C-alpha cells in the first residue's frame, strides 16, 4: 500500500458563500448585522484512491459526498487544500497540458435523463469530446463511437438516435460510453445506478466491474445505497455533514463499524431476509449544514454523547488496520 495514490486530496474544503446583496449592504451601513451565509459543504477532507481501487463514498443527503466527488473530478475548484494526481500537484500546469490531464478524470452522473443533451444524437454525445481533444480524427468518429457503444453493451446501429428514444438503463450506458470515450483512468460515479430498477441496476453494476477489469479503471463510487457500496468497493469512506467520519476496508467496516454514525447507518441497511424486524430509529434529523452543531457534528443524535463531544470536534483517529474514525471513543485505541 506504499504505492503513490492515483488521486489524492489533502485538506480539501469547499465553501459555498451567499454574498450580500445590495439591500443587505445598505442595511449593514445603516447598522444592521446581516452576515454572509457560508455552507461548508466539504470541510478539511483527506482522501486518497490507489490505482485500480474502488473507493465507496457513503452518506446521507447534504453530507457533501457529491461535492467531494466534483472536487475530485475537477469540476469544482477547491476553496482550500491540495489535489494530487499520481503524486504531482494538480492545477500547476499550463492550460493545454492541464486539459490533457483533466481528460483522465471523468464523471458519470446520477440522472441519465438530465445529464444527456436531449437535442444531440448519441453519435455526437459520445463522439464530440474525443474529436475535440484530438484523440480520434473526425473521419474515424463513426467507427470509434460504434466501438464505445459496443463496449457498454449497446447496439451501434442506434447511434443516430436521440436520448429520449432510449430506456433508463440504456441512457446510463450512454453516459458511461461518453465518459469512456476520452480514455480516462479515474471515474467518479455519482449515484450512477440510483435511478435504475433493481434488475437493470444489476446489469449496469456488472458492466462497471467488467470495464474496470478490461480497462484497468479506478473508481470513486458515490452512493447512499450501502448494499451497492458493499458489493463494489474495496474501501469505504463515510461522510457526515462535510466531514469524513470513518474510513475502513469494506469487509471490516460492515463487520465492525466503529463510529456511532456508521453503526446507525448500517443498522438501517435493509436486508432481504423475510423476517419481520422491529425498526429502531436513530433520533433526530440531519442538522442544516448552514449551521452545523458545535463540536462533533453528530453529537445531537449520538447515543454515546459525552460532554467533550459538545465542545471539541474530534480529529480522525487511526484505529489500526488501515482504519480511521472521527470519534472521541477511538482515542488511544
Amino acid at each position: 500500500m506504499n504505492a503513490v495514490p492515483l488521486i489524492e486530496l489533502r485538506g480539501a474544503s469547499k465553501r459555498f458563500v451567499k454574498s450580500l446583496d445590495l439591500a443587505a449592504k445598505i442595511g449593514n451601513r445603516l447598522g444592521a448585522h446581516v452576515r454572509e451565509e457560508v455552507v461548508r459543504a466539504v470541510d478539511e477532507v483527506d482522501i486518497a484512491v490507489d490505482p485500480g481501487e474502488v473507493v465507496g463514498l457513503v452518506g446521507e443527503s447534504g453530507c457533501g459526498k457529491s461535492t467531494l466527488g466534483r472536487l475530485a473530478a475537477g469540476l469544482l475548484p477547491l476553496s482550500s487544500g491540495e489535489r494530487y494526481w499520481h503524486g504531482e500537484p494538480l492545477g500547476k500546469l499550463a492550460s493545454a497540458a492541464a486539459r490533457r490531464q483533466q481528460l483522465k478524470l471523468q464523471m458519470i452522473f446520477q440522472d441519465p435523463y438530465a445529464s444527456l443533451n436531449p437535442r444531440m444524437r448519441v453519435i455526437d454525445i459520445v463522439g464530440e469530446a474525443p474529436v475535440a481533444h484530438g484523440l480520434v480524427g473526425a473521419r474515424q468518429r463513426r467507427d470509434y463511437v460504434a466501438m464505445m457503444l459496443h463496449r457498454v453493451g449497446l447496439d451501434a446501429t442506434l447511434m443516430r438516435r436521440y436520448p429520449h428514444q432510449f430506456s433508463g438503463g440504456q441512457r446510463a450506458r450512454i453516459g458511461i460510453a461518453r465518459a469512456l470515450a476520452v480514455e480516462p483512468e479515474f471515474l467518479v460515479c455519482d449515484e450512477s445506478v440510483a435511478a435504475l430498477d433493481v434488475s437493470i441496476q444489476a446489469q449496469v453494476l456488472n458492466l462497471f466491474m467488467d470495464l474496470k477489469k478490461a480497462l484497468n479503471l479506478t473508481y470513486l463510487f458515490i452512493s447512499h445505497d450501502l448494499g451497492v457500496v458493499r458489493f463494489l468497493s474495496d474501501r469505504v469512506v463515510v461522510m457526515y455533514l462535510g466531514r469524513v467520519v470513518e474510513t475502513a476496508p469494506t469487509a471490516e467496516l460492515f463487520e465492525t463499524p466503529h463510529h456511532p454514525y456508521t453503526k446507525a447507518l448500517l443498522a438501517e441497511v435493509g436486508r432481504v431476509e423475510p423476517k419481520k424486524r422491529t425498526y429502531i430509529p436513530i433520533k433526530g434529523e440531519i442538522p442544516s449544514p448552514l449551521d452545523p452543531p458545535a463540536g462533533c457534528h453528530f453529537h445531537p443524535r449520538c447515543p454515546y454523547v459525552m460532554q467533550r463531544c459538545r465542545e471539541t470536534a474530534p480529529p480522525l483517529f487511526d484505529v489500526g488496520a488501515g482504519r480511521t474514525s472521527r470519534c472521541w471513543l477511538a482515542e488511544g485505541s
Partner: protein
Amino acid sequence: MAEPVLAVEGLRTHFFTKQGVVKAVDDVSFSVDRGEVLGLVGESGSGKSMTGYSIMGLIDPPGRVVDGRMRLNGTDLRALSPEGLRRIRGNRVAMIFQDPMMTLNPVLRIDAQMIEAILAHEKTTEAAARARARDALARVGIPSPDARLAAYPHQFSGGMRQRVAIAIAMLNRPDLIIADEPTTALDVTIQGQILYEMQKLARETGAALIWITHDLSVIAGLADRVCVMYAGRIVEQGSAEAVLGAPRHPYTRGLLDSVPSNNTRGGRLAQIPGMTPSLLELPPGCPFRERCPRARPDCAITPEVTTLADGRALRCHYPLPATFDAAVLAS
C-alpha cells in the same frame, strides 16, 4: 374467518391511448385483512401504483377501470357514486404518496389542512378537530406539535413532511391505508424512523396497510404478505417468508438475485437479461417469457393463477422447484 377489509377480484385498469390500449393492471386479485401489511412490489411500469389508484378511484382518462370487483368491508367501491367515493376517501381509505410536497397544499398552514380533513367527514367542533390534529401530529413523532400546527409545509424537512402526511392519513382512523413508495425519497436513517412509526401505528390502530414499493428490503422487514407484480399482473403472491425466502416464480428469483446485498463482493451480480416489455399491445402469453431462463414454447399461452399447497398463488407454467429452504421454513 372474518371478512377481509379489502377484497380485489379480477381488477383490470386499461388506458386507451392513441397508440393503443395499455393494460396497466390486468386481472389482479388479492385481499387484505385487518391489521395486515400487504407488500406490493414491482419495477417501474409494473402497475403497482395504478392498482393503488384504482382502489382509491383516482384513475383519470384516458384510463378506466374496465373490469373486476373491489369490496371495502363489503361495500362495492365500483358501484359508488362520485359523492359516495368522496365520503370514503380520506375517511375509510387513506393514501400516502411518495412526494409529501405534492400531498400538502403549500399555501395553507398544517392546522387548516388537518382540520379540513376532519370536518369534511364528521360533524364536530373546530376545537375538537384541532385537538385531534394535535394528537395525530404527536403520535407520528413530531416534536412540539402545538407550535408545528401553525407551520407551513415548506418549514418542514422531507422526513417531517412525510410524517405530517401520515398523520393526515391517520386522522379519521381509516380501515385501510395505501402507502405508495412513502420512504423512497427519504434518507436511510429517516426511512428507518418512518417505517418504525408506520409499524407502530398499524399495530395500534389495527388498520390494514398496503405498502407499494420497489424496495425488496423494506417489504422484507415490514410485510406479512407479498404480491410481486410484473407487466400489470401479480406473478407471485404469498406469505413474505415463502415468497422472499423460497420464491417459485423465475421473476421473483431474478429480482432477489439482482439485489447487491444478497451477493458476495467482487463476484458478478445475477442479472435478468433484457428489459421490461412495453405494455402497449402486449402480446398474449407470459409477459416475462422473453427474459425467462425457464421459458418454453407453450409460455406463449397466458398462464392462469394456480394455488400451491403452501397457500401461495403463482402465474407460471414452469415454476422453480420447491427448495430445501422452503422445507426448513415450513417446518
